[in-house]
């Protein structure tokens, strides 16, 4: 398998404080790669570097064969990256349907004038993309909340809607920032099931930050461990679990 994403020697600082120090790792096409580590280890910053929300001071990210120093989030989206956020970043003033529809904005080619007049292409696009959105709604089994404003949804469902919004963009690579944080076991089970299906049946490469070791061990193919901005482990789940550095810095007593 080829590497779809290569992070090389990335260093990121905020006002002099290093968030990430010289980190490199590769993500192979079609795998589920989990990034673990304590809070403040630089996991989210890493994701933000990958899709261009933050610009690293040093280092490059190679995605889909193109090496880039900098990329902006929009270009990353156009190149096929979609992501979710640690603290749900849904558009709170909109319904579930509208939120997921925004994930299709790159597929909408009609101009605002056509949309305002509600003619021709605009109407057709709205219909076609709605179909794509509905398929995702069905996939995530959220039919019953389609027209509910997201602000009224419980946390677990909001997470699911956010996954839907990323998925509907038909990405090549999906970046998930703590998709299961704050969920109960049943919700975690749902979410892992969706992630596995997305990965195995739709073939979307997935990079996922997650705390729950149980989930990480069960569903990921590859684990990267960060600690205070440094990489301390990289390998298959079982390799990482037996890595002494990882046990010392993160896991404590081995489980």
């Amino acid at each position, binding site marked *: 398998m080829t590497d779809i994403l290569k992070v090389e020697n990335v260093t990121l600082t905020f006002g002099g404080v290093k968030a990430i120090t010289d980190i490199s790792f590769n993500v192979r096409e079609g795998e589920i790669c989990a990034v673990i580590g304590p809070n403040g280890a630089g996991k989210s910053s890493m994701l933000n570097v990958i899709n261009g929300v933050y610009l690293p001071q040093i280092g490059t990210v190679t995605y889909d064969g193109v090496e880039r120093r900098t990329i902006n989030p929009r270009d990353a989206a156009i190149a096929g990256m979609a992501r979710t956020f640690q603290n749900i970043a849904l558009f709170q003033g909109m319904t579930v*349907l509208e939120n997921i529809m925004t994930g299709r904005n790159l597929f909408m080619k009609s101009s605002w004038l056509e949309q305002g007049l509600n003619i021709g292409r605009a109407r057709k696009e709205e219909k076609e993309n*709605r179909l794509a959105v509905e398929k995702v709604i*069905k*996939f995530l089994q959220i*039919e*019953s909340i389609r027209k509910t404003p997201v602000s009224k949804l419980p946390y677990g469902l909001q997470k699911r809607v956010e996954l839907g919004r990323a998925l509907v963009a038909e990405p090549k690579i999906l970046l998930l920032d703590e998709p299961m944080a704050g969920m109960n076991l049943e919700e975690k089970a749902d979410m892992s099931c969706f992630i596995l299906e997305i990965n*195995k*049946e739709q073939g979307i490469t997935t990079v996922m930050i997650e705390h729950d070791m149980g989930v990480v061990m069960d569903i990921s193919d590859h684990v990267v461990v960060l600690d205070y901005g440094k990489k301390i482990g990289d390998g298959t789940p079982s390799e990482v679990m037996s890595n002494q550095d990882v046990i010392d810095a993160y896991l404590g007593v081995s489980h």
Partner: protein
Amino acid sequence: MATIPGLVLSNKQKSPDAVALRYKQLGIWNTYTWNDYYNEVSVLVDAYNKSLSVSKGTVVAVYGNNVPKLIFSIAAVQTLGGIVALIHPESTEGELKTILNNSNAEILIAEDQQQVDTFLKVESECNVKKIVYLDGRGMATYDNSKLNSYDNLVSEAKNESIDSMISGLSDNEVAFYLFDEHEDKIYKVSHEAIIKNSTKISELNKLSQNDSIVSYLPLSIPTNLLFTYITSLVCGMSFNLPESNQTIEKDLQEIGPSILYAPSFVYKHIITSISYRIESATQSNYDRYMNHYKKLMNIYEKEVSGNKSLIDSIQKVWVMLTTFAPAKNVFGLTNIKHAFVSDGVLSKVNFDFFHAIGVEIQHSFGQAISCGCISVQPDHSVSSENVGAPLSGTEIKVNENSEVLFKTDCLGENLSGEANVDNGWVNSGYVGSMDNSGNVIIDGRTEDIVTLKSGKKFSPESIENLVSCSPFIKSTVIIGENQDSNSAIVIIDPNSVNSWADRKNIRYTGYAELAAKEEVRDLIKDHIKCVNETLDDHLKVKRFVILHRTLIMTAGEVSKTMEVMRKNITTNLNDVFSAFEKNESKFTVNDIDQLTYDLKVNEI
């Protein structure tokens, strides 16, 4: 030409562009006209014939919820002369195995991964040769040569006219194998029988093509098959399928069907929901609701006795507009013309309430052997006790043991061949009576009859029905065998009792603690006292216990239509029964979840 495929064909010829089927999927109601319906079936016929070699007499098990693909499959299999065995989508492995083996099914049409997985667990013990799955989600990695995707089969098939095949069918061929959950038996039913039965119902109620019906229960429930699927074919009316289990209420509201069919628990659910909502309303709204409720019932009583005044009529319009029309709107009942209830009767309070708000409840009675129905109440019936008069071509009588016997021209046949037919009279397995006007009154199952120590016999179901009429009670089990008096196990409804408790500011955590609350006990006690007043002395409920949990379907404690399954409850909750026998006032239950609970017996 009265076969199921024949009805599809004739509907297509009569009104090709009328709506046959609506299925909510991906957010919209996908519509199939009779023409579309016919085309889908004809493609399937080719597919099933070629790839599965379905032919005359092949038994095809259909295992799933109502989705169009499944509906089309039924007609297609029958066009080829096959027999459809219907299986409930939530059937457990054991049940599935029994049905497949007893019906000798060769082909299984499964809805999706859930059904396929259940089947694969019992695969080695069955003779099923091929499986068709309708939705392939989650099964990309499955490697089993028996598995066929519906979509693949269809893509290779041709759309050819099946008119001649359909007209070649004989209407006395077997159409369905129906499973009776209570009797654990399979019955075979011919095209002619079930269609004739349905025709009787639709003629009696003047159902027409302009009606519509929403079907949200699986067709494996025989009464549901008759009232929704067959009747929609017979009348050519639209048959509407909801999007998912979570959206049924909304979907029902959107369609606003003119005909509703449901087992009694659905109606009970509606009553409970209304009560649950109103319990959490503001005090003034709550009071007004109660006030309006009384007014409405008063007017209804007058209406029944025929002395409704003009003022009453005006008042009723007002009460309906302000209080009950919204409820009807929320539950999608606004356009209902006929609301059929199968499996037993609604209690008088609930029956009257529905009639008062203009939802014409019609009780019916029937089982798999009688193609789902032998009697149905006429429109505007006012008695909540009976299940109506026999349908035309049907006779009903009650023998000296109060057993209800019937004779009908639409009879099914037990697959295993055991005869329970005596001289044309079939024993329904129920006890009951006939009233003066020839209506049938059903008391309960023969096997459930309770004999008190005093030797008096009665059917517990009628008392259970009365006790359960409170919106706070989900179900009741009456115990009395070999005892001095009746006792009841009461299962409270978590939703409505929760909101009631919140209104009363009662401190509790969780269902078990709520059920053990004195206030709840008093609430139930008062209700049972009221019920007792209407009962004969020996029938009065003297003791009751409020169960610490609800009944569990997967443990077989309730049927798929939420009826109490006495046998399994007796085994699962043996401690409760023995406590009543031993006359203990406090006892401990070792429940199936391996935990123990302390319960209290309450005297009335």
